[in-house]
């Protein structure tokens, strides 16, 4: 299970739209939003199972909500479950949904200072994704500062930059995901605990 966490508009759903056709794995998506089915509908349009949780005011997903959502999915033969958390860099970092790792999604227009401002998320994330790289020429964004700060908080986190609309950078992220799945299955076969990060 992958727990995607990022601000509203950081590009989480668009990232999934770019990832799912390229991933080559059986996947399903649990979508979390305060209201509307919009994100689940976008995923279903790709032919991928998706269930929407509406928190009706809640600012983050919790494990019991995801548990209920799982009951609405056919998980037979499923390789990976993506949970797209409610748009929010603060609260979702506090809650363990049972994921294998959290992924911090931060977009270029949000600015390069987000990691140090939201240390709980960026310190814990197994991967940090910088999205909307096509906007780099248009906005002020210091990539050195951004990745330098990610390194200060979490030197072991895997790092990816992508433009989900063109697909640039998405394959590297997909390859990493496939590797994580392989690694987890290898650990399961050997009977050792799967690594969390």
């Amino acid at each position, binding site marked *: 299970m992958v727990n995607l966490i990022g601000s509203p508009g950081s590009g989480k759903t668009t990232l999934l739209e770019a990832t799912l056709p390229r991933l080559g794995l059986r996947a399903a998506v649990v979508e979390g939003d305060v209201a509307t089915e919009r994100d689940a509908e976008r995923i279903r349009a790709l032919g991928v199972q998706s269930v929407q949780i509406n928190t009706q005011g809640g600012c983050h997903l919790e494990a019991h909500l995801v548990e209920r959502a799982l009951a609405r999915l056919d998980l037979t033969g499923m390789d990976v479950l993506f949970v797209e958390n409610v748009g929010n860099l603060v609260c979702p970092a*506090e809650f363990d949904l049972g994921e294998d790792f959290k992924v911090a999604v931060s977009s270029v227009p949000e600015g390069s200072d987000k990691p140090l401002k939201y240390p709980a998320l960026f310190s814990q994330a197994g991967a940090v994704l910088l999205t909307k790289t096509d906007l780099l020429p248009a906005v002020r964004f210091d990539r050195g500062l951004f990745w330098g*700060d990610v390194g200060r908080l979490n*030197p072991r986190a895997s790092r990816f930059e992508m433009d989900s609309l063109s697909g640039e950078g998405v394959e590297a992220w997909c390859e990493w995901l496939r590797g994580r799945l392989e690694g987890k299955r290898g650990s399961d076969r050997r009977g050792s605990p799967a690594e969390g990060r």
Partner: protein
Amino acid sequence: MHEMSLIEALVESLEETARRDRWPRVDRVSLVVGALRQVVPEVMVFCYQVAVEDTALAGSRLDLVFRPIRRRCAACGVVYEGEDAFSPCPACGSPEAELVGGMELYVESVEVEADEDDADSADAAGDGERRGPGGGGEEGSGEAGCPDGEPDRLPRIGEDHPA
């Protein structure tokens, strides 16, 4: 800002365990909270008082035990405490370190009223019996220090629980 969510999950888990294990009256719950947790201590205590009203835990007190932010330097391996999640290594000055403590959130112990007639009571004077330490589940970093103990006896907060 989500203290009530966390406390409700805690109280629900404790109640379930209290019922299952037939605990006597609960006097005190000791909750370990890492310094990087985004919670306000006074709000946690207040939410607990509200949440336990009319439950098996009514009248019990929540004590918070804080754990500092701890990081392991990526360059020299030294583990150090920091005021924040990005302070450099005091030993070698490297700015890069990984978080190894500060996201803890687990029940360290529960004090219940000892029954003087109970042969298993640990305290014949009736000051209270400690169950624990350790063993609560935790959210956040797996390296943050879920202690050895009795993981199945004490409630875990934040894990899936019946809706």
